[in-house]
């Protein structure tokens, strides 16, 4: 059964004249991993703060697990684990003490908190370093400790603000794997914000694109690229080497290629055809080129990923065809 665990309705936040979040509507289903994507300053963090009741919306409402975050933040925070951007810990306390403190704030008894903290530190792979002071932790370790800190309250929803910022690629991979594994095991709903598309692409069920306080698109990565690039789903690059340098042959080939079903766009630049298609016509193209007697150097199929979506939307509608 699908149900909306996070529901944003007409959410708006203004700082003076500046509108950080502009009439945002978004709903997230139980158990899914949702990526909130956008460049810096798009209003992602502000949206997250409003979800937790850490700042009040100018208008609109946030409901998490059916509870209004603005009016009843305590109940929301009981159910939601929040990992802030660049999370900090008490540097003169050990990782264990930091976790026990959080657990006690969530109503655990001391022994219960210790037990749970030990379990979680093992789960995130810090059991060897649990009696080290948190001040000696590296960035990646701190992030994993932050994840344990989020999980210790047995949340239904996890909200993470830029969880992969500043970790090396290996650490990012491990961290994301951890997120997916734990959310699948425990059936948690995860919302993470990021400006790094590749990382989010790997783990998210759905993403929302967030620019200048507005959600411009949402959906899973494939349907997003289909929606946004309806006329040009993929680009095929064909590098050719003219055998007898016969100009007319290339012109003929050009005409033939245009007539292939699904080709929407064709450019010939420095011995390379850039063919935009709305369906996969790679085989037909290859056949045609080979039959025409022109040497085929390479054939490259380029699909649109989030990167292109990102560039297209965030950096001013450039045409990557």
């Amino acid at each position, binding site marked *: 059964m699908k149900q909306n665990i996070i529901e944003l309705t007409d959410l708006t936040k203004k700082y003076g004249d500046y509108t950080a979040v502009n009439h945002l509507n978004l709903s997230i289903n139980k158990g899914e991993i949702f990526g909130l994507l956008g460049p810096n300053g798009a209003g992602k*963090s502000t949206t997250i*703060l409003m979800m*937790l009741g*850490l*700042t009040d919306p100018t208008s609109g409402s946030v409901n998490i697990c059916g509870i209004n975050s603005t009016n009843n933040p*305590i*109940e929301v*925070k*009981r159910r*939601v*684990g*929040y990992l*802030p*951007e*660049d*999370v*900090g*810990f*008490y*540097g*003169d306390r050990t990782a264990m003490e930091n976790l026990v*403190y*959080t657990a*006690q*704030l*969530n*109503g655990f*008894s*001391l*022994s*219960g908190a*210790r037990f749970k903290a030990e379990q979680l530190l093992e789960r995130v792979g810090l059991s060897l370093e649990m009696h080290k002071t948190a001040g000696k932790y590296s960035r990646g370790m701190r992030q994993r400790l*932050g994840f344990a*800190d989020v999980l210790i*309250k047995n949340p239904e929803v996890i909200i993470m*603000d830029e969880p992969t910022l500043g970790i090396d690629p290996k650490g990012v991979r491990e961290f994301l794997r951890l997120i997916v594994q734990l959310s699948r095991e425990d059936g948690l709903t995860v919302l993470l914000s990021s400006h790094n598309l590749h990382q989010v692409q790997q783990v998210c069920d759905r993403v929302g694109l967030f620019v200048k306080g507005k959600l411009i698109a949402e959906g899973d990565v494939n349907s997003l690229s289909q929606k946004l690039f309806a006329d040009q789903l993929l680009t095929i690059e064909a590098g050719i080497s003219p055998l007898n340098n016969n100009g007319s042959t290339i012109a003929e080939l050009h005409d033939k290629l245009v007539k292939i079903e699904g080709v929407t766009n064709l450019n010939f630049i420095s011995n390379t055809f850039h063919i935009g298609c709305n369906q996969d016509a790679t085989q037909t193209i290859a056949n045609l080129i080979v039959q025409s007697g022109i040497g085929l150097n390479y054939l490259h199929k380029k699909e649109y990923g989030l990167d292109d979506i990102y560039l297209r939307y965030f950096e001013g509608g450039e045409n990557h065809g």
Partner: protein
Amino acid sequence: MISTYVILKEVKIMDKAINNASQTRMSWIAKVSAHLHGIYAKNEHKKGNIFMHPFRVMVNKEISDHVRSWRFIILIVIISLTCMGSLYTSLTNISDAVKPNDPEGTFFFLKLFTLSDGSLPSFLVFVGFLGPLLGISLGFDAVNSEQNKGTLSRVMAQPIHRDYLINAKFVAALMVISIMLFALGFLVMGLGLITIGVPPTPEEFLRIIFFILLSIVYVAFWLNLSILFSIRFRQAATSALAGIAVWLFTTIFYGMIVNLIAKAIEPSKMAMPNQVLSYEKLIMFLERLVPNQLFSDATTTLLVPSVRSLGPLTKMQMIGAIPSPLPLGQSLLLVWPQVTGLIAATVVCFALSYFIFMKSEIRSR
């Protein structure tokens, strides 16, 4: 032959008895230790399973933070050194202070706190001077350090009320200060008792207790002021500097400014008595705008029982007055406005910080 047999038998019996005894002893030890262990384990179990209210958890953490910090150790060393110094000066001069027909003769013990030969200020003055420093240093980085460490947004994401954080910080620091001031006060009392050998009367003891309570209220004011600065200023250094600036202004410069005003509007020698009276009242009002003055007025009244009034007295009022010390109840009545003023200032600071903090947006770093 028989005798050896008998002896051997005897030995055997004795041996058995000793063995028995040692065995019972062993089992007894085992029993007791097991029992003790059981009690201990039970206690441990109980302690571990007790649910603590989040607010208590926070206060506990803040107190242990204070006690573990270097800052606190340094403060304790400074303050106890100065207290010992002032105690030393008062003890070396106490023999000269005992005069015949002194109205305060019955309050000999209180002189420990007020006496000075001029080289080192008395305990009373020291607490008035170093109390603000204590309050400022325990509070100036209360909120902004959490913000800069990135722990504030993490703690605020837990299911606790937002005001728990500042309340816990205030309560924890206040508890630390109270314990410290009481310990110092009792230490001075104890050392004085050992040295001069005169025990305090119950009234003297009560006066000292009230003095310590008043000092706690005074330090609490500075603590709240510095917590307010720590919410307002992002940098801990700025907030510490702001606190110290206010402290210096009120202790040094404010008095100078009031003096200047006093000289400027001084009535002539020929002025009417009621004119002089209203002038005196105005100057006193100006002086009492700062908490230092309130504190020193109040503590002086408490520790020097011969102080009969904190305002100007006319000749008429003085006629017929016997120069005798006031009873404790009257002294307390006399300082009541000062105490109320101090508490009000503390509450205003707290309300302001509460207001700012509850309205603020909590961002990560």
